């Protein structure tokens, strides 16, 4: 029997497979395809203080081995989450994390204060890396100082687990990871989307209403793996890796690079059952190669260097 459990601080995950924010709705959208209770956790859509309509259509462009999105944090606001959605999903027997976004630090703080009281939300993912909003969003995640500051303020206001989601659109992601660790983050997750653009050469216009959008999917996996490896070698808190994971082997690559857990994002769009299949695939891999626990392979490429 293989032990799939992993821990972030004192929070236990039954396996290292979470679903990425913005790609798995509130879990309910996938209930016909996946037994949510078999996942390590789900991270719900980016939630802000106020209701947001997001960006105008078109918001999506397909790219080589990936896609751009410019959804722009469309969501009904944290109160709607607490009153309408939370009661519907809190019965899931898995860790539900809320991805918290905003334009101002005060907004982030206001959101997490409201989430503090929800029994079945053991952790938040602090999104300081959304490339699709005009204010805030990624701006917080591209300098050590601002990343540290927002983490510090949110840490004061939230007493459960904080996972900070890092932006890849930076010169040195390991420095930023270190600075949020120093301010009390319990974990970092990476990567959010790379800022990209698509142009329609026939119409001679950008494809997205916002010109730029966030790139996700297998095309970004090499960048994500590199960053996870760099960050895992820099911080002591658990690193959660994501970016282009399409199958169990991809997930294992992230674990080998030093991630304690992974998130599955865009892949959910192509195979809505993939998250559960990845749990199974990791178990099979560990068994096949006689590993006893997920921890036996975390960061293994360094140890065997």
């Amino acid at each position: 029997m293989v032990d799939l459990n992993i821990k972030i601080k004192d929070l236990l995950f039954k396996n290292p497979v979470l679903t990425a924010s913005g790609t798995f709705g509130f879990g309910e959208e996938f209930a016909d395809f996946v037994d949510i209770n078999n996942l390590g956790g789900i991270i719900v859509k980016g939630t802000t203080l106020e209701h947001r309509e997001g960006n105008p259509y078109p918001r999506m462009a397909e790219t080589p081995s990936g896609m751009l999105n410019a959804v722009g944090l469309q969501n009904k606001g944290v109160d709607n989450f607490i009153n309408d959605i939370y009661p519907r999903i809190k019965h899931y027997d898995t860790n539900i994390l809320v991805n918290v976004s905003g334009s101002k630090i005060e907004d982030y703080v206001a959101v997490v204060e409201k989430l503090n009281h929800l029994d079945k939300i053991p952790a938040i993912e602090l999104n300081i890396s959304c490339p699709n909003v005009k204010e805030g969003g990624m701006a917080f995640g591209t300098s050590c100082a601002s990343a540290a500051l927002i983490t510090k303020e949110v840490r004061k206001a939230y007493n459960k687990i904080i996972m900070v989601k890092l932006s890849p659109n930076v010169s040195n992601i390991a420095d930023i990871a270190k600075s949020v660790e120093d301010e009390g983050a319990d974990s970092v997750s990476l990567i959010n989307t790379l800022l990209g653009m698509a142009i329609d050469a026939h119409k001679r216009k950008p494809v997205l209403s916002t010109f730029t959008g966030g790139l996700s999917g297998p095309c970004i996996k090499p960048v994500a793996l590199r960053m996870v490896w760099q960050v895992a070698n820099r911080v002591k808190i658990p690193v959660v890796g994501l970016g282009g994971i399409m199958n169990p082997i991809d997930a294992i690559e992230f674990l080998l690079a030093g991630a304690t857990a992974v998130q599955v994002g865009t892949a959910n769009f192509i195979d809505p059952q993939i998250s559960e299949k990845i749990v199974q695939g990791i178990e099979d891999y560990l068994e096949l190669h006689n590993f006893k626990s997920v921890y036996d392979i975390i960061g293994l490429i360094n140890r065997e260097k």
Partner: protein
Amino acid sequence: MKKQIKDFVIIQNQRVSPDSFMLRLRCFDPLEEIKPGQFVEILVNNSQSTFLRRPFSIHDVDYKENIISVYIKIVGDGTRQLAYSEEGDYLNLVYPLGNGFEILENKKVLLVGGGCGIAPLLYLSKKLNEANNEVDFAFGGKSHDDIFSIEEFEQEGCVSISTEDGSFGEKGYVTQSQLMYQLEEYDAVYTCGPEPMMKALAKLAAEAKVECYVSLENTMACGIGACLCCVTETTKGNKCVCTEGPVFNTKDLKW
């Protein structure tokens, strides 16, 4: 019906015109009830440039044989690769998706289709006829090549056709055809096709004070309401075309 993900086997791939084809796909399990206007998301195998699934309307359903028909126009790499698929090949489908058309009862309705927007109207008309409606069709296309399944449609109602080049039916846009002057005679209009066509029709229907249901084809990533990429602006804010549509009553749209 719950959403499913399943392999279907291709039992027929028939060229309809130089750039379109009809796939008949058999499910190994009995098909549960599908609503007209719902669609499928097909995984395209072996196309280097096709990353996401591709959405297609359900053209027809044969519950006895567990067969779904899908009409596909070749517009890019994904549809081109599907065109090469052969009888006996498997295709992976996520289905049935979307809300589907509302089925009125005992009414007189006009179904207007443009190009591949004609596709969802066959199964729709069958369901409308079952509910005792009187069904007429108005189809438009660039040329004769864009019009298909006419024999099947004629069994469901009276068909009038317009083509831009006049190669079949009246010459001109479907929204300029004779029928458009008699919209008041109908209780409702159902339409699917290019956005300019649907918008023109919505305007005519509004003028004639006839309910108008449109089926949108916004680009999609997930098809199941998770990504929020496919939204359209409605009077109640952005709504997902894949789950809260593809069918909308035009009075709810910000057109």
